[in-house]
C-alpha cells in the first residue's frame, strides 16, 4: 500500500515554493505600487510648466534614508552657524531655530539614484529668512551648506533663496528622523537631493563657488533634475 505520508508536497519543496512566492509577492507588489505612482506622476505638470516627475525618476511612497556619515541626532547638541559673506553672522540652537518664523510646505524631492517623493510636508525655516536676518552682502553669489563630518553642498544664492528652500526639522508631522538628517537638514527641492545636506551645521554665503562633497567626486555642480544633471 502506498505510504500516505509520501503523498503531497515534500516539506523542503513546500518551503522553497513558499519562500519564492512570498518574495515575488513582496517585491512584486512594491514594484507595482511604485509603477502605478510613477505612471500617474508622469501625466502631471508643475505650476512652472515643467513635468512634475523629472526624466529618469520613479515615484516612491516614502522618503528613503540614503546613508551618509551620520551626524549627532541630539537636538541638545544642534547648533546652526549662519555666516560668511554677511553683515550679521549668528548661530542658533535647536529651540531658537524653532522660534524663527516657520513654514510648512508640501514639496517634491528627487534623488540622483532615480527615485522621487511627491508631496512630502516639511516644516522649517526658509533659508531666505535666515539670509535676511544675517544681512547677506551684495557681493555674495553662492551658498555652502555645511554638515556633520565635513560634508558640504553648494547651491547658487538665487536658488538657495527660493521660498521653497528650508532648514527643516519636521517631515509629515513628525520630527525628522536621524537617518533623514535629524535633528535638522536642508531641503532644496528643485535640485537633486544630495544638495539637501543632512545634519546641517552651517549656512555659509560666499562670493566664489565652492564645489561640495559630491560635486568634487564626479557629481554635477548644479544638479537640476529636469536637465538630468547627475554627473559632471
Amino acid at each position, binding site marked *: 500500500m502506498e505510504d500516505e505520508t509520501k503523498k503531497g508536497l515534500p516539506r523542503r519543496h513546500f518551503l522553497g515554493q513558499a519562500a519564492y512566492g512570498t518574495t515575488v509577492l513582496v517585491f512584486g507588489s512594491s514594484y507595482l505600487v511604485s509603477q502605478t505612482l510613477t505612471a500617474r506622476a508622469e501625466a502631471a505638470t508643475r505650476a512652472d510648466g515643467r513635468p512634475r516627475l523629472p526624466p529618469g525618476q520613479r515615484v516612491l511612497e516614502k522618503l528613503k*534614508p*540614503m*546613508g551618509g556619515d*551620520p551626524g549627532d541626532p541630539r*537636538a541638545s547638541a544642534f547648533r546652526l552657524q549662519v555666516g560668511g559673506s554677511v553683515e550679521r553672522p549668528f548661530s542658533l540652537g535647536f*529651540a531658537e531655530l524653532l522660534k524663527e518664523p516657520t513654514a510648512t510646505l508640501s514639496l517634491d524631492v528627487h534623488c540622483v539614484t532615480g*527615485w522621487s517623493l511627491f508631496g512630502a510636508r516639511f516644516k522649517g525655516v526658509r533659508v531666505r529668512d535666515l539670509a535676511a536676518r544675517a544681512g547677506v552682502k551684495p557681493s555674495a553669489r553662492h551658498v555652502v551648506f555645511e554638515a556633520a563630518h565635513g560634508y558640504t553642498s553648494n547651491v547658487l544664492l538665487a536658488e538657495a533663496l527660493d521660498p521653497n528652500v528650508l532648514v527643516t526639522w519636521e517631515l509629515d508631522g513628525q520630527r525628522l528622523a536621524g*537617518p533623514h538628517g535629524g535633528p535638522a537638514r536642508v531641503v532644496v527641492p528643485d535640485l537633486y537631493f544630495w544638495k539637501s545636506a543632512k545634519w546641517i551645521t552651517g549656512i555659509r554665503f560666499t562670493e566664489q563657488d565652492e564645489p561640495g562633497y559630491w560635486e568634487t567626486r564626479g557629481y554635477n555642480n548644479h544638479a537640476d533634475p529636469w536637465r538630468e544633471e547627475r554627473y559632471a
Partner: protein
Amino acid sequence: MTRKRLPIRRYLRALHRDSGYLAVGLTFVYASSGLAVNHIADWDPNFTQIDRTVPVALDPAFARLHLTEDAASARRVAEATMRALGRDDAVKDVYAVDDAHVDVTLDGTMLYVDVGKGLVREEGQHERFLLRLANWLHLNRGKKAWTVIADGYAVLLLFLATSGLFMLPGRLGLLGRGAVLTGLGALVPILYVVLSGGP
C-alpha cells in the same frame, strides 16, 4: 645543442594562481559592496531602519510641567517613559524641545516623547556590520593608506585579467574561443556607451 625554453606558461599559471589567492578577500569586499551599493535606490546598504510609535501611560501631571525651564522635570519624563516601555537602555541625553515634547537619546535610537498625547516614537537604525565595513572600504571613506591598497588591488586585477588570456594554450591559440569571449566581454561596455549616448 638546443637551448632550453623558459616555461613561461607554467610561471604565468603559478603567478595567476597566487595573485588569485591574494585577491580573494578584496574581491569579496568589492563585489558584495558593489551589489549592495548598486541597488541603493531600493534599500539602505548600511543600516536597517527602526521607526515605530507606541502609546505610553504617563502621569497626566507631566503635561503641566515647564519642561524647557526645568531639566529635572524633563529627566523625570524620560525615566517614566523608559519604565513604561520596560526599557533599561542607558539614557545618553534628555532634551525638552518645548513643554510638551522631550527627546530621549539612547544608543543608536531616539525616543520622541509627546507628553500631551502620551505617544512615543522610536526611530533610529542598526548597522549591517559586515556590509557597512565593506561599503566603507569600497567607497574609500577612510582614504589615506586604503588608496594605496585599492590601487594595488586594481593592478592585481589587471594582471589577473591579462595573465588569464595567456595561461592555457588554446587549440587555435589566441584566435579561438578565447578571442570570441574576450571580444564579447569588451563589447559590453562599448555597446553600452554607444547605445546609451555616453556621458
